[in-house]
């Protein structure tokens, strides 16, 4: 095990399980291990805990308990929502509207669907990451089955106007699904008054364990099950319940509901401190995205590369992530930053810091203190930094790769 103390600023990737959650889960492995579907009371008592967790989660969302279906996580919830609706509509409507900045759980699914006979429209965003509402409105047609737009972006934290999108969908008679994996537990959500038909969430983003998630399905929404088998989750998701996960998600939901207002305040203050400190201390820094989650800072350092920054941060025990091509194993920088038209000078050097309730001011100050040295060291190496480049113009590029015709790689980068 890695004994090195870590300053964990990658909470949009995953979070620490809350100690309260851990303590609540443990008895369900060795003592309360019955099957909630069993007739005997040993199993039956477990069912009560599952029901209670469902109520806790419904309370966090402003939903009814029977509108909550437990799944294995965010990707399953997204797949269940989108494929479930398309199937339930019997193939009569074959158009899906989504955005260019969705998580791969939605975006790759859309690409798959477009290969098997569905039509998929991806709505663009502007330089601040805001959704083009006019484009959305124009995209919805008679054939549209579903609009699937995320609540908050995982890379930039940019929030979309869920109420406005939902109202538009209602007016046009189209179902609306939102991937709220990054939003649940970080912003107030009240589905009793929001025009949302389906909402995906994931436990491990809000201090519950990995492998548990949920899908909110508003009463009366036509959805076919993805996983067919037993009668669990009222026939909407077969398979013996992940009881420890469900119990953990219930406790995590209660903690989130009880502490939400205070956490939003504290996280925003810490995040803003980090943002101001880095903008003040580091040359060539710029923030990506406006109107964001309280915990997320996506910041680019011009002319240097994200993986190099991350590895230097790693050396001093700071965990963050990057939208650079090199960190993903692909050769392209983040599709989110490209959709926003972040120039290549900055997209490759983007770092995402995402905070949680467990971060401290000392940790934030430590990053603010060390980041300028890392940035300076890498900028010294870079042939593109203007002050390193007085001697000569860069001649290494072949043609103008940023403007290759037809590839769409930089369509909003002009």
């Amino acid at each position, binding site marked *: 095990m890695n004994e090195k103390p870590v300053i964990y600023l990658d909470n949009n990737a995953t979070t620490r399980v809350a100690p309260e959650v851990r303590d609540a889960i443990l008895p369900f492995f060795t003592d309360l291990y019955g099957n909630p579907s069993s007739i005997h009371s040993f199993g039956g008592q477990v069912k009560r805990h599952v029901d209670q967790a469902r109520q806790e989660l419904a309370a966090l969302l402003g939903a009814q308990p029977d509108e909550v279906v437990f799944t294995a996580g965010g990707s399953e919830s997204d797949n269940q929502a989108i494929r479930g609706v398309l199937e339930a509509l019997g193939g009569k409507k074959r158009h899906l509207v989504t955005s260019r900045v969705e998580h791969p759980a939605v975006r790759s699914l859309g690409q798959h669907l477009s290969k098997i006979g569905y039509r998929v429209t991806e709505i663009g965003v502007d330089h601040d990451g805001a959704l083009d509402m006019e484009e959305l409105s124009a995209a919805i047609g008679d054939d549209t089955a579903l609009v699937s737009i995320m609540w908050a972006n995982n890379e930039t934290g940019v929030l979309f106007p869920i109420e406005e999108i939902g109202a538009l969908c209602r007016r046009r008679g189209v179902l609306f699904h939102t991937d709220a994996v990054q939003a649940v537990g970080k912003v107030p959500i009240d589905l009793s008054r929001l025009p949302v038909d389906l909402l995906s969430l994931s436990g491990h983003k809000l201090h519950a364990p990995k492998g548990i998630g949920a899908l909110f399905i508003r009463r009366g929404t036509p959805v076919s099950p993805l996983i067919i088998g037993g009668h669990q989750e009222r026939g909407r998701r077969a398979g013996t319940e992940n009881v420890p996960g469900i119990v953990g998600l219930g406790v995590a939901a209660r903690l989130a509901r009880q502490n939400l207002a205070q956490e939003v305040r504290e996280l925003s203050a810490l995040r803003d401190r980090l943002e101001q400190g880095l903008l003040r201390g580091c040359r060539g820094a710029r923030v990506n995205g406006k109107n964001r989650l309280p915990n997320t800072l996506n910041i680019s350092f011009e*002319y*240097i*590369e994200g*993986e*190099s920054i991350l*590895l230097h941060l790693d*050396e001093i025990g700071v965990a963050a992530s990057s939208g*650079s*091509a*090199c*960190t993903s*194993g*692909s*050769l*392209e*920088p983040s599709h989110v930053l490209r959709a926003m038209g972040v120039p*290549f*000078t900055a997209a*490759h050097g983007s770092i995402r810091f995402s905070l949680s309730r467990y971060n401290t001011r000392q940790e934030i100050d430590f990053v603010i203190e060390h980041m300028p040295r890392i940035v300076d060291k890498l900028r*010294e*190496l*870079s*042939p*593109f930094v203007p002050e*390193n480049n007085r*001697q*000569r113009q*860069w*001649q*290494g*590029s*072949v*043609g103008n*790769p*940023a403007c*290759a*015709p*037809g*590839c*769409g*790689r*930089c369509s909003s980068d002009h």
Partner: protein
Amino acid sequence: MWEYTDKVMEHFRNPRNVGVIEDADAVGEVGSLSCGDALRLMLKLGPDGRIADAKFQTFGCASAIASSSALTELIKGKTLEEAAQVTNQDIADYLGGLPEQKMHCSVMGRDALLAAIENFKKGGAPVPRKDSRLVCACMGVTEKVIERAIRENRLKTVEEVTHYTKAGGGCGGCIPDIEAILKRVTAEMERAGATVPKNLTVFEKIQKIQETLDREIRPALRQDGGDIELLDIDGDRVIVSLRGTCSQCRLSTVTLKDVVQAKLREFVSPTLSVIEDGNRPVEEA
């Protein structure tokens, strides 16, 4: 998280020869901001024609920085002709290896070196980087660069070409084109008897020699109760030891020359010579 060797991390943390040579005799530049990595290599030659100083500036990930650092260390003290023999595999080997998907960082080093040498030959005039047809517009990769990577590293699949050159790693529109280039170059290499590549690494050379010994030589020797062991290789000299009846055979020199050396030259490299342990070189016919 990438599995970088300690050597890669060490060169990433403390890169050698970072900076600018104001009055460089040769400058090579490859890559671009949009592609995510770029390298400027600057060389200063001494009065003896050898590389007296090499400096670099690199924009890129840890393996790009480490590859640039390794390159400058590898070429210092060499003549330009000697330096031109440094392959991308040499750069990767110097670093104890690179992850397959990061091999393009070593290729970038090799390309910058060739660009610098070209720049010197042209008396410092700018080298047009578009040395041939542009194949991958997203990553700015030309046919010549792809072809060289295929030949020098004996690449077999489009995925390998992408790992080594980045071509095909953007929109993917050029993948059929890369497939066609792969097919053509592979056919050319086979026709030229160049299943035998020019620049084998030591490891690959040993592997090929062992394969050839197993497949082409041992069965014949064993029929006569003999055997052969590969002891070492030193450049193009293959040092072997004959065993069993062969070791006492008066015709062992003939066996080595006519059988072992001929087969190794045919299947591995025409420049090899076989030496029996004890430094008895095989006489040329």
